[in-house]
Every structure is written in C-alpha cells, then in structure tokens.
C-alpha cells in the first residue's frame, strides 16, 4: 500500500475540479432562474450526449484523417439495438450486448 505525494496531490486537484464541475451548476440553478432558450437548449442534452458517447465507441480516431470503424462494437450494437426495440429493458439490452460481444470475440469476427 503505497501512496506517493505526487499522486495524492494529483488526485486532490483533479477531484476538486471535477467536484466543482458537478456541483456549481446546482448551486447557480438554485439561485437563478434559467432563461427559456437555455432550458430549451438543455432539453436536448440527454439525446445528444448519449448519441455522442455511443458513437465515440463505434469510431476509431485517426487524428488528421477520417475515423475508422470499430467493427466489434458496431456488430455487437445491432443485437443490443434490436433488444432495445423488442424489450425496452435496460437490463436485457446490457446482457444481450455483453453476450453478443463475447461471441464476436470468441469467433474472431470484426
């Protein structure tokens, strides 16, 4: 069990900046009313952020060039999307996705 002071100060600094990013909006929103345009803007955050996080996993960045495709993730996404449409159950989607990925890796596809 070692803990270097370099790592400790890094974690304190990075922890603090992350905490502020998380809580300051709560403090500000509690005290100030957001304008309608901002509320409308923020109402698109869930779908845009989830899409961006999802797509990031389907692409392989090549800085300065067009991204490549992560075929394993893309292939495993298909049964996961189908399960989403059929069951609307988050648990089922995750289990089918993980099982599909295990099969894809086992068979050496992608």
């Amino acid at each position: 069990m070692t803990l270097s002071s370099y790592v400790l100060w890094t974690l304190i600094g990075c922890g603090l900046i992350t905490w502020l990013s998380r809580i300051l909006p709560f403090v500000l929103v509690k005290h100030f009313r957001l304008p309608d345009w901002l509320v409308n803007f923020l109402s698109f955050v869930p779908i845009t952020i989830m899409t961006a996080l999802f797509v990031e996993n389907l692409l392989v960045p090549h800085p300065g060039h067009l991204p490549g495709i992560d075929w394993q993730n893309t292939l495993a996404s298909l049964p996961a999307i189908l399960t989403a449409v059929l069951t609307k159950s988050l648990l089922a989607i995750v289990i089918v996705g993980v099982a599909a990925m295990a099969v894809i890796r086992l068979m050496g596809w992608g």
Partner: protein
Amino acid sequence: MNGDLTTRSGLHDVLPTLFGYIGVGLAFGIVGQTSHLSILEILLMSLLVYAGSAQFVITSMILAGSPIPAMILSTFLVNARMILMSTTIAQFFRKSSLRQNIAIGTLLTDETFALGMSKLNFTNGQLKPTWFNTANIVAYLVWALSTVIGGLLGNLITNPKAFGFDFALVAMFIGLLYLQIIGDRQKKIGLQLWIVLAVIIMMYGLLIVMSANMAILCATILGCLLGMVVTKK
C-alpha cells in the same frame, strides 16, 4: 422502470447500469495496476475523482510524469460535459435544499444523469433526492469496489476483454438513448432522430480535428444548438 421515487425504486432502477460500472471499473483497476498505481491509489482516485474516462487519462498522465496543473486542466476538459448534465438535472431540484443539491451533484455521472432523464418520463417530470441519492450512492460504491477488484486481479487477468464486459457501457448508452427517445413526449420522434443523425455526422467530422472527449463536448453543444434553433417558436 415505474413512477415510484422511493429508495427501493432507486435500487431497482440503478441495477442494469451497474454492469457498466463493473465492466469499466474492472478494466480501470487492471489498467491502474499495470500502470504501477497501488491499490490504495486506485481506490482514492475512484473515490476522489469518480469519473471513468478522466481516470484513464489521469493514469496515463501520471505514468508519463506530467505536471499536476496539466492533469487538472485535462480532467476539467474531459469532464466539462458534467456542467451541461448538472445544469440540466439541477432544474428539477430547485425546491430541494442546497445540501441535497450538492449531494446529488457530487455523485452525478453520465449514467445516473441518463437514468434520471429516463425516469422523468415515468413520473410526470418529477425527481426526488431519495431516489437520486440511492442510485448515485450505489453506483459510487460499486464503481470504487470494481476498480479495487480490477486492481487486485490485474496480475491474473491478461485479457479482460475476452468476456465482453467492456461492451456493457456501450450497450447501456444504446439502451438509455433508446428509452430517452421513445419516452420523451415533449419532442416528436422524427425530430429527435434527425438530431441523433446530426450528432453522429458531427462526431465523425470532429474526430478528425480533436480528441474524443472534446468531440463529445462539441457535438453535444452543437446538437443542442441545432435542436434549439429548429424548435424555436
């Protein structure tokens, strides 16, 4: 998922997302261990920083011996999207105490944010601190524990990807996105699908010129701007 906002309901709702935390947590622990972090350092990072992608970035920068201010700046940029998520969620807790607001914000993640937004579609736009704190705390503990177990397993498991657990996170984003699209009765599905398509194209283009985390942030902001403009009355 139903309309209840109790502790029990919070436990039930957060369950599917735990697979994502466990999968990525184990992977992080293994990476931390192979990057010469001690178990204590892995645990402290999970407890103090508590942010998946940022923890991977910090670990690689520690390994490279980067200056601390550079790591703090990188962490801020990687996590900047939290400002958007916190601002969005905070609107539903304006009537709760400042302490409750800070508690919810402190443990907010991509996953519990999305869970909260999906939940709104079952509760007529209501959220309660009890429900949110339960989901947040369970996720926090499972994350910390998973990273420690990953760190302990680091020596034994050479190929953590073989079982497909790393895909749990992607599957979860798929599920949360789908549930969000079909659950949001304020917006037509057609409009949402156009925004999704626009974000996909933006991500493809932005990844040429910037890092993945900056691309996520920029595509999110541009996607919201697009949505705001096309729905302007």
